[in-house]
């Protein structure tokens, strides 16, 4: 009663390195996200302070978290693809 993958994905020699990079990037994002939650919990009034261009911290931080996730996704993919191309050459 084995559970084989739906498709044969082959051996990925870059898997360990990619996982390490993933964990590091996860912690970076978690830190930024935690900052947002922490401000909401401890100093919610700060969220209303105007920062740039008439926008308050809540808007800039909220939009920032969304944009950061997208940028980090592309950066992660760039490095992973490079690792795969390099380490799985042979």
């Amino acid at each position: 009663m084995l559970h084989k993958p739906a498709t044969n994905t082959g051996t990925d020699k870059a898997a360990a390195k990619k996982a390490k990079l993933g964990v590091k990037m996860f912690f970076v994002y978690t830190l930024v996200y935690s900052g947002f939650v922490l401000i909401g919990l401890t100093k919610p009034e700060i969220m209303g302070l105007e920062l740039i261009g008439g926008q308050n911290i809540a808007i800039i931080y909220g939009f920032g978290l969304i944009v950061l996730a997208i940028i980090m996704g592309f950066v992660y993919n760039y490095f992973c693809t490079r690792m795969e191309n390099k380490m799985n050459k042979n």
Partner: protein
Amino acid sequence: MIYEVSNLAIIIFLFIVGLVLGLSFYFARKTKSSASYYAAGGNIHWAVNGIAFAGDYLSAASFLGICGMIAYSGYDGFLYSIGYLAGWVVALFLVAEPLKKLGKYTFTDALDSKFNSKYIKLTASISTLIVSIFYLIPQMVGAGDLVVPLLGLPHWMGVVIVGSIVIFIVATAGMTSTTYVQFIKGTLLVIFSTILTIYILTNGLSLTPNDNYHKFTQTQALITNDTIVSTTDPAFVVKNTRVVDKLIFVKLEKDGVDCWYKLNKKEDKATLEEMLYIVLTPNGEKLYNGAPKSENKFYQVGHLSKIVVDGKEVDKTGPVGPFEFIKTIEKSEIVRFSKKAFTDGEDKITVWYQNPTKGEDVMKPGLLYKLSKAAGASFWDKLNFLSLMLALFLGTSALPHILIRYYTVPSQRAARKSTIVAIAAIGFFYVLTLYMGLGSMISGALDVESSNMSAPLLAKTFGVGIFSIISAIALATVLGTVSGLIVASSGAIAHDFIDKYLQVEMTDKAKVKAGKMAAVCVGIFAIILGILFKGMNVSFLVGLAFAVAASANLPAILFLLFWKKTTAKGIAWSIIVGIVSSIGIILFSPTMYDKYGLIPKDAPIPLDNPGIISIPLAVITLIIVSLLTQKENHTKDFSK
């Protein structure tokens, strides 16, 4: 609220349903094996799968629920957008590729890949089923809400129609048709939400949302010895007053009809202000603003009471840019409609009173989740907020119907790339939710009986054409997401439980048949739940599904991937504790007490979101049980 049915809306809806059913027929002929039924043969292109991910994820909760929450509670609704998207970071960085490598068709396959354990098969299949059902409820509620204005049918009929179409989609072609339905829906949703946002910005802000917007009346109250004796308008007769949470509501009679006003005292002036109200009489009759629903006296609401641009008050702004729109709202004042319920003799009264709110308060957290001391935030209020943000962050990568999409692509690289496409599409959409929600809040588009309808009703203020398209896409949104959920549920029943756990001998054809039968049963169950949970905000309900998923599934996934001492029993017990504790807290929460008809303050657990307790409990259980069962820890990679 009474809605006029639009023929165009019906035509567009039928076109989309026809397209979806056509796709299902087309792919049904190709769906012969269990690999194609559960995982679309593992051959979907990563870009298509990425948008299909977005289609899966941008459910009724995102489009209807979040926009509705922002429309009523401002930035607090946007917290859901932020949290939902952040969850994808966990999926991309930690879960996507390893899960693709380990699994076959379902989330249970991946969890069990190193152990071949009966405990895991049973608990993970139950967990998949429970999370999927929790997620199904809001989708079906949303379907019912949409059908009311779109097709002029009652709520329950909407649930039945959507349920039946979805059962057909899934039972014919499984994951292949579901993927393409999601792809089409995801694309349309992002495109038309962008168009709707452009409409909002082009329209700008105005003190008069539209020509038909109701003008709320006021009259002066004459008070003697702290008692309202009459009003300056002789047509009104004062009948009664009710004090609810320090707010004073006054029952007046005009032309033989009872009506409710709110008393506002400012210095030496006492003003009675018109409200929206529903009276439920003991004989079951429901009166909307003093008349039966058919008389159409119940208005759509939501407007600005003050617009400030560059320090000056203006009546309207004209077209604005995306940042200018937010900035102007922040400086202005919005009239929200807040709800209170009380009794008057044997009548049950629900009122929605005008609640002028500063734009700066709308544009930061605090209207829904009390966070500051000034707002009277308690320890439990703060814990609720923390719990919600934790569940949203950790829930995404634990949703079975999202995880099974990793098996529809051919490689780990494709799994990663499709996740990034999903993050980009979903992130862009979530930015738009803020504009659609705020647009609804100020455009006289709100139906106070259903926050879920805010975005489609906003579209209606721009014309029947855009309303019809948006509503039809919203229905397609529900169709797509429910399809994915039913595929996940049928996989849990037929593949994980019957095939793997009970080890019933079946041919591949019989496995597909079992999956289809399971899909029909889950679909019927979802229809019943959709009818029972009518009226609840769909995003709130999905938040609960996230909490259950994050508690039951995520610790198991992460520890399996990153802790070598994890054992089969550790995983199984963590799933059990995660499910029981999260559902237990939900069942005894203030929101559920309100749903039972009890007083929310009497709820034994003052938390609405269980994650902050149930997730750590599941983690602790996994660690303790794994350490206690190390002797049984003979792991092997069964995925190879």
